[in-house]
């Protein structure tokens, strides 16, 4: 019996590493695509032919709604799912005993401010770090979290509030990818400065501390989102990953530094399916959107990919059409990922058929209609059988052979399937929109321990580059950030920390027009923002010997923030010829959304209407750890009786806005999760003062309060709206919000102020 790492229980614990419960050699199905990143198990443990719910092979079911794939490590099943239907929806990371189906621990997370609709939650998967046994997951609103195998939270980052990550109605969050020291997240963000334009970005966090190690922007302006998972491989002496993007490219990125290596334009729209590697010189990818050189939608391609890492300084390569070895336009898959078994590629296409193609030529060898259609679910392969969950809730077990496939069983799971099967020991896991199911042979199979030793990595080399961590920082006035400087060898592996021998200094790239300096001081490896530090952005450079590394950061709004925009010069012209300037530089994703301009003799921020894509904007101005503050602003909408706009602020993960077309003062945090309002007779072209606060109680709840009044009148004593949320968001970043439907009527904001609650 040949066993690979996933089918083994290895119980050797070691202690003393960073984090808690450091753990050597966790075994299992660690990522949703399995140990070989291709949906295939090479274990020879017999698996059931039929997967009947309540049948002889049905070991257990856990009642939780799923839309992805569970992962399994050392007898623990980790499932990203959700509960509830209406305002009660919470996502969960569940840890379940694989033998009993009983819960060991779980953490639940509420949505906030996301665009998720129709309960498209938990469309993704957790990922287990094989070195430590830690488990990582990203929630719908963009909380990236690490836990120990015992459920202790290691860290949490909010990529929406910290990096301007964008959520989408399709909900797809995907799975974190883990390689070496890093947890890598794929998202679309509109951050600040050079990272301001919305792009697919990859954020790499230190898996033990959650500190940002690098950011990578390997693609172009995206049409769609993408939740594809990076697929890792060695390229020359470097570690890289390959993944599809929302801009229709397949990209190759250095996994240790984030440096883009190459890209290939596969489609006009997003590539959501994971890629397959065929040897070290070929890559197979599928998509379901517009092709760039024909008018049919969707294509399976095989690319000839570089086998050597490009020489330093050559910059990212753009692979041309000559890289394409073959194509097959019958394989149309938007988000279902193909698998590769014995030289055959199996794809479930959008119209619900399973297609088998020859990986050498791309020719379709056979096809079978399984269901009316397919969405995110993907096939898996183990024990000589394809296990194929479909959107209609059927799971097809098919034994492929030379010329076709023999249907072994068709199983009705009773609810839609959106993930892939996972395999562990003698178990098959299928997640449906209703439950997580575990199937296995009636007789449990004894699994021998894996004696395979991990190959020893090559020895570390000399330090040839340095990396400053965190690679991006945000400080409210009065805060400080300590940095670690790592010395990396030529392959990007950490040799040692050189922090004590390095010096940090503020820095501007030479010949960089408009370069700015952050209002911070530096002492040793610590960067400090003084109590009166102004909102600002800039770079800090570390030097060690003749090597340099850069981190970039912002001084952001905290308690005490006041902005009346009067100090802004207006050197630019907008399309209407008005004198304008960009909004405060540390506002996330704001540069193309707002202008500072003069209106009725006062300088104010006004949302831009030149691009309809930006008709709605939400821009965070402070940090997500803020709690119990009062955020006020003057707000106004242009308009007529018939058409107005919506303007407001975000306070602690609640959007509080004057909704012009509805004549409401509204509190929301994802419209299906939290939405409360009172009628408010908003008049166009009239300034209102909007005052908001969130106050926590002692029982996990809190009060969300807002009042609005015509600016020229006295502040009313009473809150205009006051609502109790029994599961309050306990902290969250302040932000500004505008929504001008169809970009017709502009809104204005002025005199922002953040204070501690009374």
């Amino acid at each position, binding site marked *: 019996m040949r066993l690979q790492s996933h089918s083994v229980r290895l119980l050797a614990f070691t202690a003393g590493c960073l984090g808690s419960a450091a753990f050597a050699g966790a075994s299992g199905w660690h990522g949703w695509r399995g140990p070989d990143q291709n949906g295939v198990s090479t274990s020879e443990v017999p698996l059931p032919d039929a997967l009947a719910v309540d049948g002889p092979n049905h070991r257990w079911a856990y009642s939780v709604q799923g839309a992805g794939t569970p992962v399994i490590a050392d007898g623990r099943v980790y499932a990203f799912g959700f509960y509830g239907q209406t305002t009660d929806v919470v996502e969960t990371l569940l840890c379940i005993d694989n033998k009993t189906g009983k819960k060991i621990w779980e953490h639940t997370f509420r949505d906030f401010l996301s665009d998720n609709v129709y309960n498209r939650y938990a469309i993704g998967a957790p990922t287990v770090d094989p070195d430590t046994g830690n488990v990582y997951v990203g929630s719908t609103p963009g909380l990236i979290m690490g836990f120990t195998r015992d459920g202790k939270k290691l860290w949490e980052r909010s990529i929406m509030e910290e990096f301007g990550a964008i959520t989408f109605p399709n909900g797809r969050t995907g799975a974190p990818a883990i390689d070496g020291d890093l947890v890598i997240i794929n998202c679309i963000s509109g951050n600040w400065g050079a990272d301001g334009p919305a792009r697919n970005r990859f954020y790499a966090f230190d898996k033990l501390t959650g500190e940002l190690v690098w950011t990578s922007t390997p693609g172009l302006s995206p049409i769609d989102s993408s939740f594809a998972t990076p697929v890792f491989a060695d390229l020359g002496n470097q570690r890289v990953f390959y993944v599809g993007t929302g801009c229709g490219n397949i990209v190759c990125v250095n996994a240790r530094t984030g440096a883009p290596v190459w890209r290939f334009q596969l489609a006009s729209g997003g590539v959501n399916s994971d890629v397959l590697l065929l040897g070290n010189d070929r890559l197979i990818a599928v998509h379901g959107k517009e092709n760039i050189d024909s008018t049919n939608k969707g294509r399976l391609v095989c690319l000839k990919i570089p086998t050597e890492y490009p020489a330093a300084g050559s910059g990212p390569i753009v692979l041309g059409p000559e890289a394409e070895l073959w194509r097959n336009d019958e394989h149309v898959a938007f988000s279902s990922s193909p698998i590769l078994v014995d030289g055959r590629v199996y794809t479930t296409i959008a119209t619900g058929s399973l297609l088998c193609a020859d990986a050498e030529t791309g020719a379709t060898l056979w096809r079978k209609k399984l269901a009316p259609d397919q969405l995110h679910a993907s096939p898996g392969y183990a024990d000589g059988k394809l296990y194929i969950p479909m959107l209609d809730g059927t799971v097809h077990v098919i034994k492929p052979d030379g010329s076709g496939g023999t249907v072994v069983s068709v199983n009705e799971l009773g609810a839609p399937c959106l993930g892939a099967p996972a395999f562990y020991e003698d178990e098959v896991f299928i997640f449906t929109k209703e439950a997580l199911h575990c199937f296995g042979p009636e007789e449990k199979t004894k699994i021998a321990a894996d004696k395979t030793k991990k190959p020893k990595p090559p020895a570390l080399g000399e330090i040839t580059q340095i990396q400053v961590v965190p690679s991006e920082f945000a400080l409210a006035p009065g805060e400080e950030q300590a940095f670690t400087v790592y010395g990396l060898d030529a392959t990007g592996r950490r040799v040692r920390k050189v922090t004590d021998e390095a010096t940090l200094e503020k820095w501007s790239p030479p010949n960089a027009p408009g370069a700015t300096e952050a209002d911070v001081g530096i002492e040793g490896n610590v960067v400090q923002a003084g109590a009166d530090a102004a909102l600002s952005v800039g770079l800090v450079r570390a030097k060690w010997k003749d090597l340099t590394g850069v981190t970039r950061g912002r001084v952001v709004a905290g308690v005490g923030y006041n902005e009346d925009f009067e100090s802004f010069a207006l050197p630019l012209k907008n399309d209407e010829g008005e004198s304008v300037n960009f909004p405060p530089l540390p506002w996330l994703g704001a540069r193309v959304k707002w202008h500072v301009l003069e209106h009725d003799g006062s300088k104010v921020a006004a949302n831009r209407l030149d691009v309809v894509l930006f008709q709605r904007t939400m821009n965070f101005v402070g940090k997500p750890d803020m709690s119990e503050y009062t955020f006020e602003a003057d707000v106004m909408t242009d308009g007529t009786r018939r058409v107005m706009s919506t303007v407001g602020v975000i306070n602690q993960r609640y959007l509080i806005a004057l909704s012009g077309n509805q004549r409401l003062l509204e509190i929301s945090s994802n419209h299906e999760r939290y939405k409360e309002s009172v009628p408010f007779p908003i008049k166009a072209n009239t300034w209102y003062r909007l005052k908001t606060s969130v106050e926590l109680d002692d029982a996990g709840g809190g009060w969300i309060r807002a009042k609005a009044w015509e600016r020229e009148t006295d502040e009313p004593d009473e809150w205009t709206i006051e609502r109790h949320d029994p599961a309050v968001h306990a902290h969250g970043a302040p932000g500004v919000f505008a929504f001008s439907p169809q970009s*017709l009527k502009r809104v204005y904001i002025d005199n922002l102020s953040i204070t501690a609650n009374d």
Partner: protein
Amino acid sequence: MTDMKSRTKLFVASALLLGPVAFGNDWPMWGGTPDRNMVAEADGIPTDIASGEYLPKSENVDMETTKNVLWVAKLGSQAYGSPVIAGGRVYVGTNNESPRDPNQKGDRGNLMCFDEKTGEFLWQLVVPKIGAGKVSDWEYVGLCSSPAIDGDVGWVVTNRGEVVCFDVKGMADGNDGEFQDEAMYSSQEGEPIELTDQSADILWIYDVREQLGVFPHNVSSCSLAVVGDRIYAATSNGVDWSHKNIPAPFAPALIVLDKNTGELIAEEASGVSERVLHASWSSPVIGKVNGEPMIIWGGGDGFCYGFDIEPYEHEEGFSALKELFRYDANPPEYREKDGEPVKYATFEGPSEIIATTVFANNRVYMVIGQDPEHGDGVGRMSCIDPSKTGDISGDAVWTNTDVGRSISTPSVTEDLVFQAEYDGDIHCLDAETGEQLWVYPTHSRIWSSTLVADGKVFIGNEDGELVILEAGREMKEIAKVDFYTPIYCTPVVANNVLYVTTQTHLYAIGSE
């Protein structure tokens, strides 16, 4: 079969009394007439059809490999705007992925016009994208509406939510009409484009976004009804990204324009937009109820409405449509269970009307459905008496819940109803009782509507099959023809030629 044909003729003839004058058996608007009944007069439509193969390294069909295909025209990469045929021209909505104008590349909405006899490309209307992303003008979906043609003039709803009136001859006979700035209109980048004989000649434009503050959801889609001097248009007003928030609750969902000037004549004031579930995409019907014309329309709130053809002065000082009846096309249990609202876009939840309601037999036939993205779910077909007034919910002639969610418009003969369902089934019901007579499963998603012509039911599905059944009380498959590319448009017949529109090609099918 002969019976069927003569009955069909009768309907077509009676409907034509209302609609624009058509040549022979043209199909000048969605549904052929303002009744919108998917029934056409025809004979000799071949059923032995081969869609053919592409020429090597090309997307052009090798005509040597086709059978009973008269011509094939290349469209873009997606096509949802079913063709109309009038005055020797064929019009179809698509996108710009096969650019006919080498200077106009990139994502656009296109209305293409071809010669009816030869398939030769004549001209096109090129409509820039709003640039709002998916929320109001989804990338690459193209122009999704069918135009309506009346003599030398046509009207179409663009992907931008405009009603555009155009000269059917295009720019070849000069730039006619008040509107002269076609070069800027078709510009995506802000620089005037070069106009040619193959450019559209726009006569006027009415923009529901700018004029009425409408927020079209995903894309604007409505096939206009043109009767007398008036045009009837749904606005596609709907929800935003959140699918909960309605950004323009007081913008109308249905409007009436002057067909000559584009001037707003009236708007619905029934509060459809405040209740809209997703978007108001259904196309309006003008039916002669007991001989009197009435506006009949399926709302984005799941109600079917009847409006007086003549507007009245609303108390708030605008010209409004007087509501004669409203009928909830959902049974109460789809909207509420155990005192709680049933969530929209769940299997059990309520639906809007996306397909077109059909006026036939002095009755109105309708189905409820949702955006295909919302998947399967409970549905219902209703037959109502439009001469009733007030809220007639629950007071149907018959209803049938064997028909699940559907975005397909029915074909109604004197005694039978053919109704496709999104799940791939084709239902045949008794028109009088609503009793289901048979169901034919195609095993593939259906966006297309049925068309009854020449005694047969024609329909396309997502697997790219044209399914041909006998239009009778007994289920009989006549043929299945593979077009290899999804068919979302409805097969239509004009002048004894069948038009099948895949995502990428338009096929004219007739006896060779």
